[in-house]
Protein backbone atom coordinates (compact mmCIF):
# COMPACT_ATOMS: atom_id res chain seq x y z
CA UNK A 1 0.00 0.00 0.00
CA UNK A 2 1.51 3.26 -1.12
CA UNK A 3 0.94 6.51 0.73
CA UNK A 4 -1.18 8.97 -1.24
CA UNK A 5 1.67 11.41 -1.35
CA UNK A 6 5.30 10.93 -0.60
CA UNK A 7 7.73 13.79 -0.95
CA UNK A 8 11.40 12.98 -0.80
CA UNK A 9 14.23 15.52 -0.45
CA UNK A 10 12.31 18.09 -2.51
CA UNK A 11 14.31 21.12 -3.57
CA UNK A 12 12.61 24.10 -5.19
CA UNK A 13 14.81 27.09 -5.79
CA UNK A 14 14.10 30.57 -7.10
CA UNK A 15 16.67 32.03 -9.43
CA UNK A 16 16.39 35.75 -8.72
CA UNK A 17 18.57 38.69 -9.58
CA UNK A 18 19.90 38.82 -6.04
CA UNK A 19 20.80 35.15 -5.90
CA UNK A 20 19.34 31.69 -5.52
CA UNK A 21 16.55 31.58 -2.95
CA UNK A 22 16.14 28.09 -1.56
CA UNK A 23 12.40 28.23 -0.98
CA UNK A 24 12.32 24.49 -0.41
CA UNK A 25 15.56 22.94 0.70
CA UNK A 26 15.21 19.21 1.14
CA UNK A 27 11.66 18.66 2.32
CA UNK A 28 10.35 15.16 2.92
CA UNK A 29 7.08 13.82 4.36
CA UNK A 30 4.18 11.64 3.38
CA UNK A 31 0.39 11.63 3.56
CA UNK A 32 -1.64 8.44 3.91
CA UNK A 33 -4.99 7.76 2.36
CA UNK A 34 -7.78 9.87 3.83
CA UNK A 35 -5.41 11.53 6.27
CA UNK A 36 -5.38 15.25 7.13
CA UNK A 37 -1.86 16.55 7.42
CA UNK A 38 -1.19 20.18 8.30
CA UNK A 39 1.96 21.89 7.10
CA UNK A 40 2.64 24.81 9.43
CA UNK A 41 5.18 27.56 9.42
CA UNK A 42 5.58 31.30 9.12
CA UNK A 43 5.57 33.31 5.92
CA UNK A 44 8.38 32.41 3.58
CA UNK A 45 9.01 28.99 5.14
CA UNK A 46 8.15 27.31 1.84
CA UNK A 47 4.84 25.73 2.78
CA UNK A 48 2.86 27.17 -0.16
CA UNK A 49 5.66 26.34 -2.57
CA UNK A 50 5.53 22.75 -1.38
CA UNK A 51 1.90 22.54 -2.52
CA UNK A 52 2.64 24.18 -5.87
CA UNK A 53 5.61 21.85 -6.32
CA UNK A 54 3.33 18.83 -5.89
CA UNK A 55 1.28 20.10 -8.83
CA UNK A 56 4.47 21.11 -10.61
CA UNK A 57 3.15 24.65 -10.93
CA UNK A 58 6.05 26.52 -9.36
CA UNK A 59 5.93 30.06 -10.76
CA UNK A 60 8.78 31.69 -12.66
CA UNK A 61 11.65 32.15 -11.74
CA UNK A 62 11.30 29.12 -9.48
CA UNK A 63 12.18 25.56 -10.44
CA UNK A 64 12.13 22.15 -8.84
CA UNK A 65 15.81 21.27 -8.88
CA UNK A 66 15.80 18.02 -6.99
CA UNK A 67 13.91 15.37 -5.10
CA UNK A 68 10.99 13.13 -5.81
CA UNK A 69 7.24 13.45 -5.51
CA UNK A 70 5.28 10.20 -5.46
CA UNK A 71 1.53 10.11 -5.91
CA UNK A 72 0.01 6.70 -5.20
CA UNK A 73 3.34 5.12 -6.02
CA UNK A 74 3.88 7.03 -9.26
CA UNK A 75 6.77 9.43 -9.57
CA UNK A 76 5.28 12.77 -10.65
CA UNK A 77 8.72 14.10 -11.54
CA UNK A 78 8.84 11.59 -14.37
CA UNK A 79 5.46 12.66 -15.75
CA UNK A 80 5.17 14.61 -18.97
CA UNK A 81 3.38 17.95 -18.89
CA UNK A 82 0.40 16.24 -20.50
CA UNK A 83 0.28 13.55 -17.84
CA UNK A 84 0.58 16.21 -15.16
CA UNK A 85 -2.45 18.00 -16.59
CA UNK A 86 -4.43 14.81 -16.14
CA UNK A 87 -3.36 14.71 -12.50
CA UNK A 88 -4.23 18.34 -11.76
CA UNK A 89 -7.82 18.93 -10.79
CA UNK A 90 -8.63 15.24 -11.06
CA UNK A 91 -6.46 13.22 -8.70
CA UNK A 92 -4.98 16.23 -6.93
CA UNK A 93 -6.87 19.49 -6.52
CA UNK A 94 -6.08 22.71 -4.77
CA UNK A 95 -7.82 25.45 -2.79
CA UNK A 96 -6.24 28.87 -2.59
CA UNK A 97 -5.98 31.43 0.15
CA UNK A 98 -7.83 34.42 -1.26
CA UNK A 99 -11.31 33.49 -2.43
CA UNK A 100 -11.57 37.04 -3.75
CA UNK A 101 -8.91 36.47 -6.39
CA UNK A 102 -8.75 32.73 -6.91
CA UNK A 103 -12.05 32.47 -8.80
CA UNK A 104 -12.03 34.00 -12.26
CA UNK A 105 -14.10 37.21 -12.06
CA UNK A 106 -15.10 37.04 -15.73
CA UNK A 107 -16.97 33.72 -15.61
CA UNK A 108 -19.96 32.50 -13.67
CA UNK A 109 -19.59 29.96 -10.89
CA UNK A 110 -21.40 27.40 -13.04
CA UNK A 111 -19.10 27.96 -15.98
CA UNK A 112 -16.04 27.36 -13.78
CA UNK A 113 -17.45 24.28 -12.07
CA UNK A 114 -18.68 22.69 -15.29
CA UNK A 115 -15.32 23.35 -16.87
CA UNK A 116 -13.63 21.56 -13.97
CA UNK A 117 -15.78 18.49 -14.59
CA UNK A 118 -15.48 18.46 -18.35
CA UNK A 119 -11.69 18.79 -18.48
CA UNK A 120 -11.37 15.35 -16.98
CA UNK A 121 -14.67 13.53 -17.50
CA UNK A 122 -16.72 12.80 -20.56
CA UNK A 123 -19.90 14.47 -19.38
CA UNK A 124 -22.60 16.48 -21.05
CA UNK A 125 -23.17 20.02 -19.87
CA UNK A 126 -26.35 18.87 -18.15
CA UNK A 127 -24.57 16.07 -16.31
CA UNK A 128 -21.76 18.40 -15.27
CA UNK A 129 -24.32 20.96 -14.14
CA UNK A 130 -26.11 18.31 -12.05
CA UNK A 131 -22.91 17.17 -10.46
CA UNK A 132 -21.83 20.73 -9.68
CA UNK A 133 -25.12 21.67 -8.06
CA UNK A 134 -24.99 18.49 -6.01
CA UNK A 135 -21.50 19.37 -4.83
CA UNK A 136 -22.49 22.94 -3.96
CA UNK A 137 -25.28 21.47 -1.87
CA UNK A 138 -22.78 19.25 -0.08
CA UNK A 139 -20.76 22.28 1.01
CA UNK A 140 -23.93 23.94 2.37
CA UNK A 141 -24.07 26.75 -0.16
CA UNK A 142 -27.56 28.21 0.09
CA UNK A 143 -29.70 27.99 -3.10
CA UNK A 144 -27.03 26.28 -5.23
CA UNK A 145 -28.98 26.40 -8.53
CA UNK A 146 -29.21 30.17 -8.41
CA UNK A 147 -25.53 30.50 -7.45
CA UNK A 148 -24.49 28.61 -10.57
CA UNK A 149 -25.42 31.67 -12.62
CA UNK A 150 -23.79 34.14 -10.26
CA UNK A 151 -20.45 35.79 -10.79
CA UNK A 152 -17.85 35.42 -8.04
CA UNK A 153 -18.11 39.07 -7.00
CA UNK A 154 -21.76 38.56 -6.20
CA UNK A 155 -20.87 36.08 -3.45
CA UNK A 156 -19.45 36.74 0.01
CA UNK A 157 -15.98 35.55 0.95
CA UNK A 158 -17.27 32.53 2.84
CA UNK A 159 -19.52 31.49 -0.03
CA UNK A 160 -16.70 31.82 -2.53
CA UNK A 161 -14.50 29.61 -0.43
CA UNK A 162 -17.31 27.03 -0.31
CA UNK A 163 -17.41 27.18 -4.11
CA UNK A 164 -13.67 26.58 -4.19
CA UNK A 165 -14.07 23.58 -1.88
CA UNK A 166 -16.89 22.23 -4.03
CA UNK A 167 -14.82 22.57 -7.17
CA UNK A 168 -11.81 20.96 -5.57
CA UNK A 169 -13.80 17.92 -4.46
CA UNK A 170 -15.97 17.60 -7.59
CA UNK A 171 -14.05 14.67 -9.00
CA UNK A 172 -13.28 12.89 -5.71
CA UNK A 173 -9.53 13.52 -5.81
CA UNK A 174 -7.19 11.37 -3.74
CA UNK A 175 -5.45 14.48 -2.45
CA UNK A 176 -6.61 18.00 -1.69
CA UNK A 177 -4.05 20.76 -1.26
CA UNK A 178 -5.56 23.55 0.82
CA UNK A 179 -3.41 26.66 1.04
CA UNK A 180 -4.55 28.76 4.00
CA UNK A 181 -8.18 28.29 2.96
CA UNK A 182 -9.68 30.23 5.86
CA UNK A 183 -7.07 32.86 6.64
CA UNK A 184 -8.84 35.60 4.69
CA UNK A 185 -12.19 34.96 6.37
CA UNK A 186 -13.78 36.32 9.53
CA UNK A 187 -13.46 34.16 12.64
CA UNK A 188 -17.08 33.09 12.77
CA UNK A 189 -17.08 32.20 9.07
CA UNK A 190 -13.69 30.54 9.33
CA UNK A 191 -15.04 27.88 11.66
CA UNK A 192 -17.97 27.05 9.36
CA UNK A 193 -15.85 26.80 6.23
CA UNK A 194 -13.25 24.66 7.93
CA UNK A 195 -15.92 22.27 9.19
CA UNK A 196 -17.42 21.98 5.72
CA UNK A 197 -14.06 21.29 4.12
CA UNK A 198 -13.05 18.61 6.60
CA UNK A 199 -16.45 16.91 6.46
CA UNK A 200 -16.61 16.92 2.66
CA UNK A 201 -13.06 15.59 2.37
CA UNK A 202 -13.73 12.81 4.85
CA UNK A 203 -16.91 11.86 2.98
CA UNK A 204 -15.08 11.42 -0.29
CA UNK A 205 -12.09 9.77 1.35
CA UNK A 206 -9.79 12.54 0.13
CA UNK A 207 -6.52 13.06 1.91
CA UNK A 208 -5.84 16.71 2.77
CA UNK A 209 -2.59 18.60 2.88
CA UNK A 210 -3.58 21.78 4.66
CA UNK A 211 -1.17 24.66 4.72
CA UNK A 212 -1.56 27.14 7.52
CA UNK A 213 0.22 29.41 9.92
CA UNK A 214 -2.51 29.04 12.50
CA UNK A 215 -1.57 26.40 15.07
CA UNK A 216 -4.98 26.57 16.67
CA UNK A 217 -6.62 25.44 13.44
CA UNK A 218 -4.05 22.66 13.21
CA UNK A 219 -4.91 21.34 16.65
CA UNK A 220 -8.56 21.12 15.66
CA UNK A 221 -8.37 19.28 12.36
CA UNK A 222 -5.01 17.61 11.79
CA UNK A 223 -4.15 13.95 12.10
CA UNK A 224 -0.50 14.72 11.68
CA UNK A 225 1.58 17.89 11.56
CA UNK A 226 4.64 18.93 9.56
CA UNK A 227 6.44 22.01 10.91
CA UNK A 228 8.54 23.93 8.41
CA UNK A 229 11.14 26.63 8.93
CA UNK A 230 13.17 28.37 6.22
CA UNK A 231 12.46 25.80 3.53
CA UNK A 232 13.06 22.71 5.67
CA UNK A 233 10.97 20.38 7.79
CA UNK A 234 12.08 20.87 11.38
CA UNK A 235 9.63 18.51 13.02
CA UNK A 236 6.81 16.17 12.17
CA UNK A 237 4.55 13.92 14.16
CA UNK A 238 0.98 13.22 15.15
CA UNK A 239 -1.01 16.18 16.35
CA UNK A 240 -0.78 14.86 19.89
CA UNK A 241 2.99 14.50 19.68
CA UNK A 242 3.49 17.98 18.28
CA UNK A 243 1.23 19.71 20.77
CA UNK A 244 2.05 17.74 23.90
CA UNK A 245 5.70 16.79 23.32
CA UNK A 246 7.14 19.29 20.84
CA UNK A 247 10.77 18.35 20.33
CA UNK A 248 12.25 21.09 18.18
CA UNK A 249 13.03 24.40 19.89
CA UNK A 250 11.25 26.22 17.06
CA UNK A 251 8.04 24.24 17.53
CA UNK A 252 8.27 24.77 21.26
CA UNK A 253 8.77 28.49 20.84
CA UNK A 254 5.97 28.81 18.33
CA UNK A 255 3.52 27.13 20.69
CA UNK A 256 4.54 29.37 23.58
CA UNK A 257 4.52 32.59 21.55
CA UNK A 258 0.83 32.50 20.68
CA UNK A 259 -1.44 34.39 23.02
CA UNK A 260 -4.32 32.02 23.63
CA UNK A 261 -7.65 32.34 25.31
CA UNK A 262 -7.41 31.22 28.89
CA UNK A 263 -10.17 28.82 29.68
CA UNK A 264 -12.24 29.00 32.80
CA UNK A 265 -10.27 26.23 34.42
CA UNK A 266 -7.17 28.36 34.63
CA UNK A 267 -6.21 30.42 37.61
CA UNK A 268 -6.30 34.15 37.95
CA UNK A 269 -2.54 34.56 38.11
CA UNK A 270 -1.23 37.82 36.69
CA UNK A 271 -0.36 37.71 33.02
CA UNK A 272 3.13 36.73 31.95
CA UNK A 273 4.82 38.29 28.96
CA UNK A 274 4.63 36.10 25.87
CA UNK A 275 7.51 33.82 25.12
CA UNK A 276 9.78 35.57 22.66
CA UNK A 277 11.96 34.02 20.04
CA UNK A 278 14.57 36.67 19.41
CA UNK A 279 15.96 37.58 16.04
CA UNK A 280 14.53 37.43 12.56
CA UNK A 281 13.66 34.80 9.98
CA UNK A 282 16.82 34.28 7.90
CA UNK A 283 16.98 35.31 4.26
CA UNK A 284 16.41 32.38 1.92
CA UNK A 285 19.22 33.55 -0.33
CA UNK A 286 21.68 33.46 2.52
CA UNK A 287 20.92 30.54 4.80
CA UNK A 288 23.38 29.61 7.53
CA UNK A 289 25.41 26.48 6.82
CA UNK A 290 24.07 24.58 9.79
CA UNK A 291 20.57 24.55 11.26
CA UNK A 292 18.56 27.48 9.87
CA UNK A 293 17.04 28.14 13.27
CA UNK A 294 20.39 28.14 15.04
CA UNK A 295 20.86 31.96 15.16
CA UNK A 296 17.56 32.32 17.04
CA UNK A 297 17.86 29.23 19.19
CA UNK A 298 18.63 29.61 22.88
CA UNK A 299 19.67 25.96 23.23
CA UNK A 300 22.06 25.90 20.28
CA UNK A 301 25.36 24.06 20.61
CA UNK A 302 28.46 24.44 18.40
CA UNK A 303 27.42 21.62 16.11
CA UNK A 304 24.17 23.45 15.22
CA UNK A 305 26.00 26.28 13.49
CA UNK A 306 28.30 23.97 11.59
CA UNK A 307 26.16 21.16 10.25
CA UNK A 308 22.64 20.75 8.95
CA UNK A 309 20.78 18.38 11.30
CA UNK A 310 19.11 15.36 9.72
CA UNK A 311 15.67 14.24 10.92
CA UNK A 312 16.16 12.20 14.08
CA UNK A 313 13.35 9.73 14.77
CA UNK A 314 11.77 10.09 18.21
CA UNK A 315 9.14 7.45 17.79
CA UNK A 316 7.28 5.67 15.07
CA UNK A 317 5.62 8.82 13.78
CA UNK A 318 7.64 11.56 15.43
CA UNK A 319 10.89 13.07 14.14
CA UNK A 320 12.78 16.31 14.69
CA UNK A 321 15.67 17.84 12.77
CA UNK A 322 17.60 19.02 15.79
CA UNK A 323 21.05 18.05 17.01
CA UNK A 324 19.80 18.08 20.59
CA UNK A 325 17.54 15.18 19.66
CA UNK A 326 20.34 13.14 18.19
CA UNK A 327 19.71 9.47 18.69
CA UNK A 328 22.53 7.00 18.59
CA UNK A 329 22.82 4.54 15.74
Amino acid at each position, binding site marked *: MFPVLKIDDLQTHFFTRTGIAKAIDGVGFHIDKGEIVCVVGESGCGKSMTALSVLRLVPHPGRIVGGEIWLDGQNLMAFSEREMREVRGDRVSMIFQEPMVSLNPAFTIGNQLIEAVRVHRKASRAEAWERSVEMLRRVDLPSPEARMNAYPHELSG*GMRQRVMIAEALLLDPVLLLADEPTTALD*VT*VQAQVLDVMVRAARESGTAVMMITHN*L*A*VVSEIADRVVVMYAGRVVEQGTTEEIFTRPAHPYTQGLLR*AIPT*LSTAAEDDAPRQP*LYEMGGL*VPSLTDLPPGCAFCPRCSAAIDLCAAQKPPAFPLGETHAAACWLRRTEG
Partner: protein
Amino acid sequence: MADILAVENLQKHFEYGGGLLRKPRLVRAVDGVSFSVREGETIGLVGESGCGKSTTGRLAMRLIDATAGSIRFAGADITRLGGRPLKTLRAQMQMIFQDPHSSLDPRMKVGDLIGEGLRLFPEIDAAARAGRIAEAMERVGLRPEHADRYPHEFSGGQRQRIGIARAIVMTPKLVVADEPVSALDVSIQAQVINLLERLRSDLGLSYLFISHDLGVVEHISDRIVVMYLGRVVEFADCRAIFRHPRHPYTKTLISAIPIPRFGVKRERIPLTGEVPSPLDPPSGCHFHPRCPFARERCRTETPPFRRLSDGHWIACHHPLED
Protein backbone atom coordinates in the same frame (compact mmCIF):
# COMPACT_ATOMS: atom_id res chain seq x y z
CA MET B 1 -8.63 56.61 37.92
CA ALA B 2 -9.47 59.41 35.52
CA ASP B 3 -10.47 58.76 31.94
CA ILE B 4 -7.90 59.77 29.36
CA LEU B 5 -10.38 59.24 26.53
CA ALA B 6 -14.15 59.05 26.65
CA VAL B 7 -16.36 58.76 23.60
CA GLU B 8 -20.09 59.05 23.86
CA ASN B 9 -22.71 58.11 21.33
CA LEU B 10 -20.13 58.47 18.58
CA GLN B 11 -21.55 58.26 15.05
CA LYS B 12 -20.03 58.31 11.61
CA HIS B 13 -22.23 58.08 8.55
CA PHE B 14 -20.85 57.81 5.04
CA GLU B 15 -22.64 58.32 1.80
CA TYR B 16 -22.14 55.41 -0.50
CA GLY B 17 -22.72 55.16 -4.23
CA GLY B 18 -25.30 57.39 -5.78
CA GLY B 19 -24.77 59.70 -8.66
CA LEU B 20 -26.60 62.06 -10.89
CA LEU B 21 -29.77 60.05 -10.95
CA ARG B 22 -29.64 58.03 -7.76
CA LYS B 23 -29.68 59.09 -4.15
CA PRO B 24 -26.64 57.85 -2.25
CA ARG B 25 -27.23 55.35 0.54
CA LEU B 26 -26.32 56.17 4.07
CA VAL B 27 -23.88 53.78 5.69
CA ARG B 28 -23.77 54.00 9.46
CA ALA B 29 -20.20 52.79 9.82
CA VAL B 30 -20.20 53.81 13.47
CA ASP B 31 -23.62 54.08 15.03
CA GLY B 32 -23.69 55.24 18.61
CA VAL B 33 -20.48 54.00 20.19
CA SER B 34 -19.64 54.78 23.82
CA PHE B 35 -16.69 53.67 25.91
CA SER B 36 -13.81 55.14 27.87
CA VAL B 37 -10.13 54.55 28.34
CA ARG B 38 -8.67 55.14 31.80
CA GLU B 39 -5.18 56.42 32.36
CA GLY B 40 -2.65 53.62 32.05
CA GLU B 41 -5.25 51.21 30.79
CA THR B 42 -5.49 49.13 27.64
CA ILE B 43 -8.87 48.90 26.01
CA GLY B 44 -9.26 46.15 23.45
CA LEU B 45 -11.62 46.94 20.59
CA VAL B 46 -12.68 43.75 18.83
CA GLY B 47 -15.03 42.73 16.07
CA GLU B 48 -15.19 41.16 12.63
CA SER B 49 -14.65 42.95 9.34
CA GLY B 50 -17.06 45.81 8.73
CA CYS B 51 -17.90 46.30 12.39
CA GLY B 52 -16.50 49.82 12.40
CA LYS B 53 -13.62 49.29 14.80
CA SER B 54 -11.01 51.00 12.63
CA THR B 55 -13.35 53.90 11.93
CA THR B 56 -13.92 54.27 15.66
CA GLY B 57 -10.17 54.46 16.21
CA ARG B 58 -9.79 57.12 13.53
CA LEU B 59 -12.70 59.09 14.97
CA ALA B 60 -11.13 59.04 18.42
CA MET B 61 -7.87 60.26 16.83
CA ARG B 62 -9.84 63.02 15.06
CA LEU B 63 -8.39 61.80 11.76
CA ILE B 64 -11.94 61.89 10.48
CA ASP B 65 -14.80 63.99 11.78
CA ALA B 66 -17.69 62.47 13.65
CA THR B 67 -21.23 62.89 12.36
CA ALA B 68 -22.49 63.09 15.94
CA GLY B 69 -21.44 62.34 19.49
CA SER B 70 -18.62 63.61 21.61
CA ILE B 71 -14.97 62.81 22.20
CA ARG B 72 -13.32 63.92 25.42
CA PHE B 73 -9.58 63.72 25.81
CA ALA B 74 -8.03 64.27 29.26
CA GLY B 75 -11.23 65.94 30.37
CA ALA B 76 -11.56 68.40 27.48
CA ASP B 77 -14.09 68.14 24.67
CA ILE B 78 -12.12 67.74 21.42
CA THR B 79 -15.00 66.77 19.13
CA ARG B 80 -14.88 69.99 17.14
CA LEU B 81 -11.36 71.14 17.88
CA GLY B 82 -9.48 72.40 14.84
CA GLY B 83 -6.38 74.21 13.66
CA ARG B 84 -3.39 74.72 15.93
CA PRO B 85 -4.99 73.37 19.14
CA LEU B 86 -5.81 70.12 17.34
CA LYS B 87 -2.23 69.81 16.10
CA THR B 88 -0.84 70.34 19.56
CA LEU B 89 -3.30 67.85 20.93
CA ARG B 90 -2.27 65.26 18.38
CA ALA B 91 1.13 65.05 19.97
CA GLN B 92 -0.59 63.58 22.99
CA MET B 93 -2.51 60.93 21.08
CA GLN B 94 -0.62 58.85 18.57
CA MET B 95 -1.50 56.08 16.22
CA ILE B 96 0.16 52.82 15.21
CA PHE B 97 -1.03 51.34 11.94
CA GLN B 98 -1.66 47.82 10.76
CA ASP B 99 0.47 47.55 7.69
CA PRO B 100 4.11 48.28 8.41
CA HIS B 101 4.68 48.45 4.64
CA SER B 102 2.22 51.15 3.71
CA SER B 103 2.30 53.24 6.87
CA LEU B 104 5.88 54.37 6.34
CA ASP B 105 6.59 56.77 3.46
CA PRO B 106 9.04 54.74 1.36
CA ARG B 107 10.97 57.85 0.35
CA MET B 108 11.86 59.09 3.79
CA LYS B 109 14.70 57.99 6.02
CA VAL B 110 13.75 56.26 9.22
CA GLY B 111 15.09 59.08 11.38
CA ASP B 112 13.08 61.68 9.46
CA LEU B 113 9.98 59.52 9.68
CA ILE B 114 10.26 59.18 13.42
CA GLY B 115 11.10 62.85 13.90
CA GLU B 116 8.47 64.27 11.56
CA GLY B 117 5.97 65.06 14.28
CA LEU B 118 8.58 66.85 16.37
CA ARG B 119 9.07 69.41 13.61
CA LEU B 120 5.76 70.95 14.59
CA PHE B 121 7.38 72.18 17.75
CA PRO B 122 9.86 74.91 16.90
CA GLU B 123 11.17 74.90 20.45
CA ILE B 124 12.72 71.50 19.81
CA ASP B 125 15.89 72.22 17.84
CA ALA B 126 17.68 69.81 15.53
CA ALA B 127 20.02 68.50 18.21
CA ALA B 128 17.23 67.88 20.68
CA ARG B 129 15.24 66.23 17.94
CA ALA B 130 18.08 63.91 17.04
CA GLY B 131 18.45 63.02 20.69
CA ARG B 132 14.81 62.14 21.07
CA ILE B 133 14.80 60.12 17.86
CA ALA B 134 17.78 58.11 19.07
CA GLU B 135 16.14 57.56 22.43
CA ALA B 136 12.88 56.40 20.87
CA MET B 137 14.71 54.04 18.54
CA GLU B 138 16.61 52.54 21.43
CA ARG B 139 13.42 52.10 23.41
CA VAL B 140 11.79 50.06 20.67
CA GLY B 141 14.89 47.96 20.10
CA LEU B 142 16.25 49.59 16.95
CA ARG B 143 19.85 50.66 16.56
CA PRO B 144 19.97 54.50 16.52
CA GLU B 145 22.72 54.39 13.91
CA HIS B 146 20.14 53.00 11.48
CA ALA B 147 18.32 56.34 11.44
CA ASP B 148 19.53 57.17 7.96
CA ARG B 149 18.33 53.96 6.38
CA TYR B 150 15.11 53.65 4.39
CA PRO B 151 12.10 51.63 5.56
CA HIS B 152 12.47 48.99 2.86
CA GLU B 153 15.78 47.94 4.35
CA PHE B 154 13.92 46.62 7.40
CA SER B 155 11.84 43.49 7.94
CA GLY B 156 8.14 43.61 8.80
CA GLY B 157 8.67 43.37 12.54
CA GLN B 158 11.34 46.06 12.52
CA ARG B 159 9.14 48.33 10.45
CA GLN B 160 6.42 47.98 13.03
CA ARG B 161 9.00 49.02 15.61
CA ILE B 162 9.68 52.12 13.51
CA GLY B 163 5.96 52.86 13.57
CA ILE B 164 5.94 52.48 17.34
CA ALA B 165 8.99 54.73 17.71
CA ARG B 166 7.25 57.37 15.60
CA ALA B 167 4.36 57.29 18.07
CA ILE B 168 6.27 57.29 21.35
CA VAL B 169 8.79 59.96 20.32
CA MET B 170 5.95 62.46 20.80
CA THR B 171 5.57 61.31 24.45
CA PRO B 172 1.86 60.71 23.98
CA LYS B 173 -0.62 59.86 26.71
CA LEU B 174 -2.79 57.69 24.50
CA VAL B 175 -1.82 55.40 21.65
CA VAL B 176 -4.44 54.09 19.23
CA ALA B 177 -3.06 50.87 17.78
CA ASP B 178 -5.00 49.65 14.73
CA GLU B 179 -4.31 45.92 14.24
CA PRO B 180 -0.63 46.50 15.01
CA VAL B 181 0.38 42.82 14.93
CA SER B 182 -2.06 41.34 12.38
CA ALA B 183 0.40 41.52 9.51
CA LEU B 184 3.20 39.89 11.47
CA ASP B 185 4.27 36.29 11.85
CA VAL B 186 3.59 34.59 15.18
CA SER B 187 7.17 34.68 16.41
CA ILE B 188 7.51 38.38 15.53
CA GLN B 189 4.04 39.18 16.83
CA ALA B 190 5.06 38.04 20.32
CA GLN B 191 8.07 40.39 20.24
CA VAL B 192 5.92 43.37 19.29
CA ILE B 193 3.20 42.61 21.86
CA ASN B 194 5.78 42.34 24.63
CA LEU B 195 7.34 45.60 23.45
CA LEU B 196 3.99 47.37 23.59
CA GLU B 197 3.36 46.05 27.12
CA ARG B 198 6.81 47.13 28.25
CA LEU B 199 6.35 50.62 26.83
CA ARG B 200 3.01 50.95 28.53
CA SER B 201 4.45 50.40 31.97
CA ASP B 202 7.68 52.32 31.30
CA LEU B 203 6.02 55.38 29.79
CA GLY B 204 2.64 55.26 31.49
CA LEU B 205 0.75 54.97 28.21
CA SER B 206 -2.87 54.13 27.64
CA TYR B 207 -3.81 52.01 24.64
CA LEU B 208 -6.84 51.69 22.47
CA PHE B 209 -5.93 48.37 20.93
CA ILE B 210 -7.97 47.48 17.85
CA SER B 211 -7.79 43.88 16.69
CA HIS B 212 -9.81 41.01 15.29
CA ASP B 213 -7.61 38.49 17.11
CA LEU B 214 -9.27 37.69 20.41
CA GLY B 215 -6.26 35.81 21.68
CA VAL B 216 -4.07 38.88 21.35
CA VAL B 217 -6.74 41.16 22.76
CA GLU B 218 -7.30 38.98 25.77
CA HIS B 219 -3.58 38.92 26.43
CA ILE B 220 -3.07 42.66 26.31
CA SER B 221 -6.35 44.31 27.41
CA ASP B 222 -7.74 45.39 30.75
CA ARG B 223 -11.21 45.98 29.41
CA ILE B 224 -12.77 45.02 26.11
CA VAL B 225 -15.24 46.63 23.74
CA VAL B 226 -16.98 44.20 21.38
CA MET B 227 -18.45 45.74 18.24
CA TYR B 228 -20.86 44.35 15.66
CA LEU B 229 -21.98 46.26 12.56
CA GLY B 230 -21.19 49.72 13.87
CA ARG B 231 -22.51 49.26 17.40
CA VAL B 232 -21.00 48.24 20.70
CA VAL B 233 -22.64 45.03 21.86
CA GLU B 234 -20.69 44.51 25.05
CA PHE B 235 -18.16 46.47 27.11
CA ALA B 236 -16.68 44.97 30.24
CA ASP B 237 -13.64 43.84 32.10
CA CYS B 238 -11.47 41.47 30.08
CA ARG B 239 -11.98 38.55 32.39
CA ALA B 240 -15.72 39.06 32.55
CA ILE B 241 -15.94 39.14 28.77
CA PHE B 242 -14.04 35.90 28.33
CA ARG B 243 -15.28 33.96 31.33
CA HIS B 244 -18.85 35.19 31.53
CA PRO B 245 -19.87 36.83 28.26
CA ARG B 246 -23.43 38.12 28.52
CA HIS B 247 -24.09 39.01 24.90
CA PRO B 248 -24.81 36.05 22.57
CA TYR B 249 -22.53 37.52 19.91
CA THR B 250 -19.60 37.77 22.29
CA LYS B 251 -20.16 34.21 23.36
CA THR B 252 -20.35 32.83 19.82
CA LEU B 253 -17.33 34.86 18.79
CA ILE B 254 -15.28 33.45 21.63
CA SER B 255 -16.51 29.94 21.03
CA ALA B 256 -15.53 30.16 17.35
CA ILE B 257 -11.90 30.62 18.22
CA PRO B 258 -9.86 27.47 18.10
CA ILE B 259 -7.32 26.88 20.81
CA PRO B 260 -3.88 25.55 19.92
CA ARG B 261 -3.90 22.70 22.36
CA PHE B 262 -4.32 19.03 21.72
CA GLY B 263 -7.56 17.46 22.78
CA VAL B 264 -9.27 20.70 23.69
CA LYS B 265 -12.46 20.47 21.72
CA ARG B 266 -14.42 23.62 22.29
CA GLU B 267 -18.13 23.53 22.62
CA ARG B 268 -19.04 25.67 19.68
CA ILE B 269 -22.21 27.67 19.43
CA PRO B 270 -23.41 27.02 15.91
CA LEU B 271 -23.53 30.27 14.00
CA THR B 272 -25.05 30.42 10.59
CA GLY B 273 -24.46 32.94 7.85
CA GLU B 274 -21.96 35.70 7.58
CA VAL B 275 -21.72 39.25 8.82
CA PRO B 276 -24.36 41.18 6.86
CA SER B 277 -23.26 44.10 4.72
CA PRO B 278 -23.09 47.39 6.63
CA LEU B 279 -24.89 48.83 3.61
CA ASP B 280 -27.99 46.95 4.56
CA PRO B 281 -27.98 46.04 8.26
CA PRO B 282 -30.80 43.99 9.76
CA SER B 283 -33.54 45.76 11.70
CA GLY B 284 -33.70 45.94 15.47
CA CYS B 285 -30.69 44.23 17.00
CA HIS B 286 -28.24 43.84 14.13
CA PHE B 287 -27.27 40.41 15.37
CA HIS B 288 -30.77 38.92 15.47
CA PRO B 289 -30.68 36.96 12.16
CA ARG B 290 -27.69 34.97 13.40
CA CYS B 291 -28.56 34.85 17.07
CA PRO B 292 -29.69 31.48 18.42
CA PHE B 293 -31.63 33.23 21.19
CA ALA B 294 -33.39 35.89 19.13
CA ARG B 295 -37.05 36.61 19.88
CA GLU B 296 -39.64 38.82 18.28
CA ARG B 297 -38.57 41.93 20.14
CA CYS B 298 -35.00 41.62 18.83
CA ARG B 299 -36.29 41.96 15.28
CA THR B 300 -38.15 45.18 15.83
CA GLU B 301 -36.52 47.06 18.64
CA THR B 302 -32.93 48.21 18.84
CA PRO B 303 -31.63 47.17 22.25
CA PRO B 304 -30.30 50.10 24.26
CA PHE B 305 -26.70 50.11 25.43
CA ARG B 306 -27.19 49.77 29.16
CA ARG B 307 -25.38 49.03 32.39
CA LEU B 308 -25.94 45.47 33.45
CA SER B 309 -23.81 45.41 36.57
CA ASP B 310 -20.90 47.41 37.83
CA GLY B 311 -18.59 47.98 34.88
CA HIS B 312 -20.47 45.62 32.57
CA TRP B 313 -22.33 47.26 29.69
CA ILE B 314 -24.39 45.47 27.10
CA ALA B 315 -26.79 46.05 24.24
CA CYS B 316 -29.11 43.05 24.36
CA HIS B 317 -32.76 42.49 25.20
CA HIS B 318 -32.11 39.03 26.59
CA PRO B 319 -28.64 38.86 28.11
CA LEU B 320 -27.25 35.41 28.81
CA GLU B 321 -27.25 34.19 32.38
CA ASP B 322 -24.13 34.92 34.33
